[in-house]
């Protein structure tokens, strides 16, 4: 078995296909001629640096348009999903790649800031699952029809969406007194520090509950046992909604 690669045949010179203007124009032509009858309005196609083609689609036509792109134009890979806070509205941006035709296409959907909702693409591309979950988590766009839309990067009890421009990443209130100016008794008892931590913790929007350290083993699942009643004692009423926080730890330990 010859496992080591050899240069048996001379290499073809690298293809500059991707940045070939005619090649990109073919895609633009296909989009401008065939998409309007599907979407019902003239397609707004833009050309960008690096052979990238941009397309704006109304949110209700997204699935129809992407199905057309996948089945007819051969965009078989969903590469990237990005959510952007554009100030007065949110954008959900999809980057599609065609391996057979070597095209990259950027599809943009504009959503109202009050209720950013758009249909999920998981049915078309399984890759959309985590990509959309991430944008739901960090930007707050709801993808309708997603099978498992919950936070992926941040904690379940995190409040807010950090990549929104309105998100305060720094605490509103910081104790302005230097440590030396704290009364000695308070400093020794650690009271001052505890106050500061509470303020910071709450202002960061991480919920009111004390959180378990991420490394704390929560074998099995408290929520399951609470529901099925097997294995451990079910938590008290009004406590069991958030899973995994059965045993609480004191702060500052």
């Amino acid at each position, binding site marked *: 078995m010859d*496992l080591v*690669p050899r240069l048996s045949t001379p290499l073809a010179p690298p293809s500059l296909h991707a940045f070939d203007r005619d090649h990109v124009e073919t895609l633009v032509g296909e989009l401008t001629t065939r998409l309007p009858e599907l979407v019902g309005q003239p397609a707004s196609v833009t050309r960008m640096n690096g052979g990238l083609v941009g397309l704006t689609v109304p949110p209700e036509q997204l699935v129809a348009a992407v199905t057309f792109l996948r089945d007819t134009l051969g965009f078989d890979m969903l590469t990237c999903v990005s959510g952007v806070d554009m100030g007065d509205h949110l954008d959900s941006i999809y980057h599609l790649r065609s391996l057979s035709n070597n095209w990259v296409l950027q599809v943009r959907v504009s959503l109202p800031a009050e209720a950013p909702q758009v249909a999920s693409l998981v049915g078309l591309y399984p*890759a959309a699952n985590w990509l959309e979950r991430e944008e739901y988590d960090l930007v707050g766009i709801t993808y309708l029809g997603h099978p498992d839309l919950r936070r992926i990067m*941040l904690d379940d009890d995190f409040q807010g969406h950090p990549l929104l421009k309105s998100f305060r990443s720094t605490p509103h209130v910081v104790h302005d007194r230097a440590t030396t100016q704290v009364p000695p008794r308070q400093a020794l008892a650690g009271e001052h520090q505890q106050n500061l931590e509470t303020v910071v913790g709450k202002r960061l929007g991480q919920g009111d509950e004390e959180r378990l350290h*991420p*490394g704390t083993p929560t074998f099995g699942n408290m*929520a399951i046992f609470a529901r*099925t009643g097997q294995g451990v004692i079910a938590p008290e009423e009004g406590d069991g909604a958030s899973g995994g926080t059965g045993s609480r730890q004191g702060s500052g330990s």
Partner: protein
Amino acid sequence: MAEQTTSEVPRYITGPEGLRSEEMILNMGPQHPSTHGVLRLVLTLDGETVVNCTPVIGYLHRGIEKILENRSYMAGIRYMDNSDYLSPMLNETAYVGAVEQLMGLEPPRRAQYIRLLTNELQRIASHLVAIGTYGLDLGAFTPVLYAFRDREGIMDLFEALGGSRFNVNYLRVGGVLHDFPKGWLDQCHKWLDQFEQHSLPELEALITGNEIFDARTQGVGYIDPKQAIAHGITGPILRASGVSFDLRADRPYMAYREVAVNVQTRPEGDAFARYRVRMNEMYESVRLCRVALDKMPGGPIATRTPIALRPPRGETYFALESSKGEQGIYLISDGSEYPYRAKIRGPSFVNLQIMPELLRGHKMADVVAILGSIDIVLGEVDR
């Protein structure tokens, strides 16, 4: 970082003679030597067989995308190092390339060739870690020592070049930071010779053809090419499934427009094929390094670019072939000194998604063999 929800309620399986067995939930990680970081896998087991797997990620989330929004373009390069911390050069090249594409800036040829050289060295370093730790996962302790010994040579080269072993912070918009110091090229030649003539054959002799390694990897974790494309998988995993897709060859960027790349593919689609593709890519990277050293043009190493860059308003998507797959940057500029939005498309994040489908039906012992063959870096999964 979410806890398990409804679908994970254990099922009871009633066998013949009324015997009942119960599915078990096994928590693997986040602190586990074989998860290559802080990945947590919640496995539902029926005896030894994996019924379902739910990856729980986010333990290493640092909000790099938010940090980049608050740093000027030149200052943000450094934070890209922490995304995929095993291939910082490639991440930096992606970010820098995105800014350059946004500005329509073409760096000098020498800078492009220096980038190619450092990128290929970094690819070797990353693949060495992938293969070494993969051996470690499968119970072979020696390969990781050999692999890390060889990687040290690359780290020394980077240290001489950029001043730091890992977080090199070497690339700049419009070029690179330093030219080669005295004697660097000789050292690089020496390392490449030593690596190709001694280290790679040693590594091959240790792993390839080892009966245990073959038995544990061949036919394990098969990925169908169509499935791989639908799941957005790129990099060595996609190429190990027989799809010849490599951004260096298919959408060449920077110096790859002049240097042809031999795309390494394997038709099998199993864990062994992925190992094999990584090994072959190291041979190919050594060849590319030599080509870059031979063709290294003279001239300036960077254009004159202001520190306070203000790219024109607009957006761009730039992708390059990282050691794990397609590393993409989606960048929006509002004309100010800070990027309005910088989205990192990490290949590890997308590649990890297929884990549950791969594990279903495999034995518990194969979990580590499959996870190791995907070669994730949690810094990039969580960002």
